[in-house]
């Protein structure tokens, strides 16, 4: 399964993960060098040193998305004392967007779980320790103890330094197997299911074992013999130590949970429900938006033509969301400055693609699936994409690039009858459009004739460091023209 080596994944800004939808499993699995060496100063440097010095590796909280700063352990797939082989899932982590199985890229023994299931840890913080051999387990445990006492404060720098820069994985340890001289060339090796499991566990190269079972097959006891283990003494020898799993939650996580409660006396009858990871991410983004100087420009748009078009394309599965996203994308194509973002406060970042993020409310949260290249794809293709994105967000299976690659956001509360509202600019984007309901309105034309037209108010919030009033006004004018004469949408 672990087809893609982790090192290929180290991409630019923030995304340091390689994803792969595993074919066999419905859940997504994360392939990453989950582990870094704990000895030495900077973890990623140390990993370049060959495997002699450090035998204990830290398993750290991976960054599952660019916005993720901390993650919650849903469950440990493995327990302390379990042997891990690379590619096996070790832990299930809930990020702000999805639950993911996280796999290790190293063989070893899960010596200690530092952050138990249900607890959260900042990205990059150690959540468990991986020992290479059983001898190192006590050492790792001691280390875990000291670590849980001096837990690092929550990480605050936004994109955590990519620990996966620890590119070249050290050579795998030599097989412990006692090599058996007799190799019979092309003979097919037959090993029983349990023998294969044991071989993996004891790292015995099954090709070197001579089977003594019926028809020359390799039996579990052959593997045990090859691994130098006496039969009748199963691998449970370290189990007494393992059973006493230190369940003590990390003190800092505890403190963080309790801190806000002290601020205000609780109102009688109130219940405190902690944020889910997704809600925490929303909260963080919203607070972050306060550092951006934004302004708003509103514009009324006549929608009779758009409504007529919608009726026509509705049977083909096109939704209003897609039409609006498409219209915005076409307008952005003509006003590239509205599609920029300001990353450092000193420059414009012109985005090559026009990726329209659409705000989606989902049970207890908010997510922004992205219609990529919305200016280039036709509305039917976009509608298909949109349907897929909705299904994925429902299943919490959006890939990071499917919710974090937006260059412009559209938010529509029109279906609730909201006539106008004001959206908060998400970090990393230049502008966001808030769409209100389309309502019949009496309008007077230049000649003084009254008529009733459907009008909706759109309101764009933008980062004034890069987008100015006239930019937005011109953009909105173009947008209104497209909507009022929507033929270009179906081209």
């Amino acid at each position, binding site marked *: 399964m672990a087809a893609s080596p982790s090192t290929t994944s180290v991409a630019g800004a923030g995304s340091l993960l390689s994803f792969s939808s595993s074919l*066999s499993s419905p859940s997504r699995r994360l392939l990453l060098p989950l582990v870094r060496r704990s000895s030495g100063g900077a973890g990623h440097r140390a990993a370049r040193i060959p495997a002699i010095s450090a035998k204990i590796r830290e398993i750290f909280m991976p960054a599952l998305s660019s916005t993720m700063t901390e993650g919650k352990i849903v469950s440990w797939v493995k327990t302390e004392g379990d042997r891990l082989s690379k590619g096996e899932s070790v832990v299930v982590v809930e990020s702000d967007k999805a639950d993911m199985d996280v796999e290790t890229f190293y063989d070893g023994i899960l010596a200690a779980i530092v952050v138990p299931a249900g607890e959260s840890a900042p990205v990059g913080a150690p959540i468990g320790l991986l020992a290479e051999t059983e001898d190192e387990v006590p050492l790792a445990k001691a280390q875990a103890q000291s670590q849980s006492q001096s837990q690092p404060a929550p990480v605050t720098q936004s994109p955590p330094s990519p620990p996966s820069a620890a590119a070249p994985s050290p050579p795998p340890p030599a097989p412990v197997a006692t090599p058996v001289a007799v190799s019979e060339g092309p003979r097919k090796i037959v090993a*029983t299911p349990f023998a294969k499991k044991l071989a993996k566990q004891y790292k015995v190269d099954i090709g070197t074992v001579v089977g003594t079972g019926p*028809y020359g097959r390799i039996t579990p006891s052959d593997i045990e013999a090859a691994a130098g283990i006496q039969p009748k003494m199963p691998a449970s020898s370290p189990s007494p130590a393992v059973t006493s799993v230190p369940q003590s939650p990390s003190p800092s996580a505890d403190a963080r949970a309790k801190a806000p409660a002290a601020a205000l006396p609780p109102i009688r009858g109130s219940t405190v429900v902690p944020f889910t990871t997704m809600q925490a991410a929303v909260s963080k983004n919203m607070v972050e938006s306060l550092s951006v100087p934004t302004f708003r420009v509103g514009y009324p748009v006549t929608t009779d033509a758009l409504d007529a078009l919608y009726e026509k394309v509705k049977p083909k599965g096109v939704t209003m969301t897609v039409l609006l996203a498409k219209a915005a994308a076409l307008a952005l194509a003509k006003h590239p400055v509205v599609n920029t973002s300001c990353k450092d406060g000193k420059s414009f970042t012109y985005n090559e693609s026009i990726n329209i993020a659409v705000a989606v409310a989902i*049970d207890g949260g908010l997510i922004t699936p992205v219609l990529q290249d919305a200016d280039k794809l036709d509305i039917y293709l976009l509608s298909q994409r949109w349907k897929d994105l909705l299904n994925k967000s429902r299943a919490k299976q959006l890939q990071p690039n499917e919710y974090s690659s937006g260059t412009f956001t559209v938010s*529509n509360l029109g279906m609730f009858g909201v006539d106008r509202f004001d959206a908060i600019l998400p970090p990393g984007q230049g502008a966001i459009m808030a769409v209100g309901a389309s309502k019949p309105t009496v309008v007077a034309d230049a000649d003084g004739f009254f008529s009733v037209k459907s009008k909706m108010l759109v309101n764009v919030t933008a980062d004034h460091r890069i987008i100015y009033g006239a930019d937005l006004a011109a953009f909105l004018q173009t947008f209104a023209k497209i909507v009022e004469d929507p033929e270009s949408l179906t081209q």
Partner: protein
Amino acid sequence: MPASVSLSLSLPLSPAASPRSDPSVAASPFGAFRRFGLRFCGLRREFLSLRSLTSEATGRISPYPARGISKKVLAAAKSNGSPTKGFDYDLVIIGAGVGGHGAALHAVEKGLKTAIIEGDIVGGTCVNRGCVPSKALLAVSGRMRELQDEHHLKALGLQVASAGYDRQSVADHANNLASKIRSNLTNSMKALGVDILTGVGTVVGSQRVKYGKVGFPDTEVTARNIIIATGSVPFVPNGIEVDGKTVFTSDHALKLEWVPDWIAIVGSGYIGLEFSDVYTALGSEVTFVEALDQLMPGFDPEIGKLAQRILINPRKIDYHTSVFAKKITPAKDGKPVRIELIDAKTKEPKDTLEVDAALIATGRAPFTKGLGLENIMVTTVRGFIPVDEHMQVMDADGNLVPHIYCIGDANGKLMLAHAASAQGISVVEQICGNNNVLNHLSIPAACFTHPEISMVGLTEPQAREKSEKDGFEIRVAKTSFKANTKALAENEGEGLAKLIYRPDTGEILGVHILGLHAADLIHEASNAIALGTRIQDIRFAVHAHPTLSEVLDELFKSAKVNMGTSPSVSEPVAV
């Protein structure tokens, strides 16, 4: 019970007085009661009262005084009825499995003169070669697992010396259980006066059935209605040579004639999974061969994933998915069982397994040959007999065949023993004039592994599909056994209960449970579905503490039903 009193009016004679129904004998003394009996078969009331008028006109009615009737009624309240004029029986059932048995019991209760034809032994697959003996083996495997799990025992503070078993005694236990249940079944029918006719039944015409043992002359009987309940046999794909010793089906495996060191199980559905539980507990190693791309394809995906984590990965089991067993050769001439695997899609040869035994658990095929279906112009579909929602048989042109019904595995609607029985009861209701359609979505299913898996209704993907088609929203609620006191007391906290429901109405669409005693827990959900109980009502029902049933209590309570409130953000909505 007023109902039974009125019912019994149609059961005037003690079993002794009701001989093997020679119609000419039966006709005259029964005439008087026919009018009463008709009440319960409302549909036929007019038609028959006309008939009874004619018989009155012929003056062949014996005028029993009313009092006399009521006395006899009490004596005969639970005995077989008298047939309607012109027929040997009101109902003839072909096949005495669980489906036929359920139908027979209910028919007698409804006052129908009933016979059941069985060519083999009473009890059918379930009792003799299925659910019943396998539960005996699984009871053994469950205990073996507990006794072998040192870690678990230690956690409970128990010390047990090494556990072992005697194969023959285990096999005897399974066999004895089957015999006992079989005799219970036979006795229950005999006690009610159901005629058990021995032989292979064949439909001769729309209301005629013949039966007889091979080499003996057939006997023909007439019946007002016929139920076909001939069940199924293990399905063996082409290319697989079953010798009953090293390559075998569940029929042989249940006899537990030996415990192979290494057995391949072809098919990872209920049957395969249960046998993997038995064999691994008894010390075998197991290799699954599954044609689809994941194990346990019939289960809700989330349950399947967890089941794999609990029931497959930690055990001495490996598996090959997306492969067909193209050819399986039994062990002979000092060679092991050979299984040739080909890729399920490309059909390219993939691998060859050499194992000690192979269990073929690729499903079951309907047993409908020799039923004389051609006499009533019925063509089977892949062996299954086509039926409508009332289980009434349809002929090749899709027209209903009057008076003939088919229940259980033979119609393939839902191949479960209790489904067959429920269908049988539904048919009896139907022929007695009570319109009855069985809601198959309320029928639970269970897999008796350790821990057990159970389910009722739709899986999440099925529910999603339906919700998209019919335009409603669904939600999923889940609870874990880890939070249940009783489960933790047993040190068996692994497990999940999952509820799929409509937040707008509170309707339960499906419930899936994996965990301790899941098979017993499902009925709260299946009953709720059958009775149409909504989550907002059932969540107020009280559960004894501490019990495993609180897992479901939690589940219902964690569901968010938003009756009357805007369902604005329960499903993804672009905003």
